[in-house]
């Protein structure tokens, strides 16, 4: 699956990363503690969180995550968007809760391991 498939099938809002949509998705991780994502996130996973601080960009870039999905209708801070564009990190949004979004993503075959 690619990010484009994910965006289309789960109706995600694309905040940044319009040029990265061909990137593959290989699993997912959900956590709001960035220290935990640094420890346990894996390359090419999507990362589901409600944190919108600019540090999410650095964590996603460092761990080579495929995209960050912000839940509950949350929007990235302006500075987060600017940094994400610079680092070519994809940030999406959904109005769903973490639980509901992860459930639907799992249903599409995006697994946790």
């Amino acid at each position, binding site marked *: 699956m690619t990010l484009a498939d994910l965006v289309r099938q789960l109706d995600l809002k694309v905040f940044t990363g319009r040029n990265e949509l061909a990137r593959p998705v290989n699993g997912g991780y959900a956590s709001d503690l*960035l*220290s935990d994502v*640094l420890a346990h996130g894996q390359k090419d996973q999507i990362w589901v969180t409600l*944190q*919108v*601080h*600019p*540090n999410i960009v650095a964590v996603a870039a460092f761990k080579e995550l495929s995209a960050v999905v912000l839940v509950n209708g949350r929007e990235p801070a302006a500075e987060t968007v600017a940094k994400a564009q610079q680092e070519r990190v994809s940030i999406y949004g959904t109005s769903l809760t973490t639980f509901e979004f992860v459930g639907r993503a799992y249903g599409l075959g995006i697994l946790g391991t």
Partner: protein
Amino acid sequence: MELRRYRADLHIHSCLSPCGELTNYPRRIVERAVEEDLDVIAVTDHNTAENAAAVLRAAEGTGVAVLPGMEVASEEEVHVLGLFESLGDLLPVQDAVFRSLPEVPPKKTFVKDQVIVNADDEVTGFSARHLLAATRLDLRAVVSLIHRFGGLAVASHIDKDAFSVISQLGFVPPDLDLDALEVSPHMTVAAARKAFGLNPSAALVRFSDAHRPEDIGRTTTDFLLAAPTLPEIRKALRSKGGRKVCAS
């Protein structure tokens, strides 16, 4: 001006903090500060400063300097100490924090009483606010709010697994204008510098984060200062004018 070492514990919760013991009332806090030879303390309750005036009054004539403060929880659930020169500086910050707390009062069953007292340790009221909750202010807004009113912003217990800038945000945002980072009693400054790859120029301090009288002064930081005041401590954190944070 002569400089000397001043022993400081600038992270103390009173009985107003929902996690603070009821015995941590103003006179007891000051009594413990005297017993521990502390020169300067700060009362830093969660998202409130309603007991700060009582601690200031209780310390009058004891030789212990008190900085009014509070420990603010940002939207990301990062705890930040705000330390101020006067109550007048702190109160507008408290107002802004109160406006940013969730409207829902805490469930009685989950938190201890949040007791407001006077300088004679008499109960004058109970806070009905959700003091342990996160505010709606993001971390940058918390730091700039503290600075707008002349306060020092210190990231609390950066080595803790929860409510620390590192647990919540992975690392200390490099462009965040913090005045110092606090290491908890469970770690040394040297170990923290190594473990978290901290900027060598970042000022590191250690305080007790006491929630009960016996913990006050268990961990302290010595500052080389001309007087135990906020402007002097600010200079020490910036290594200005010969003031400094003494190695612990």
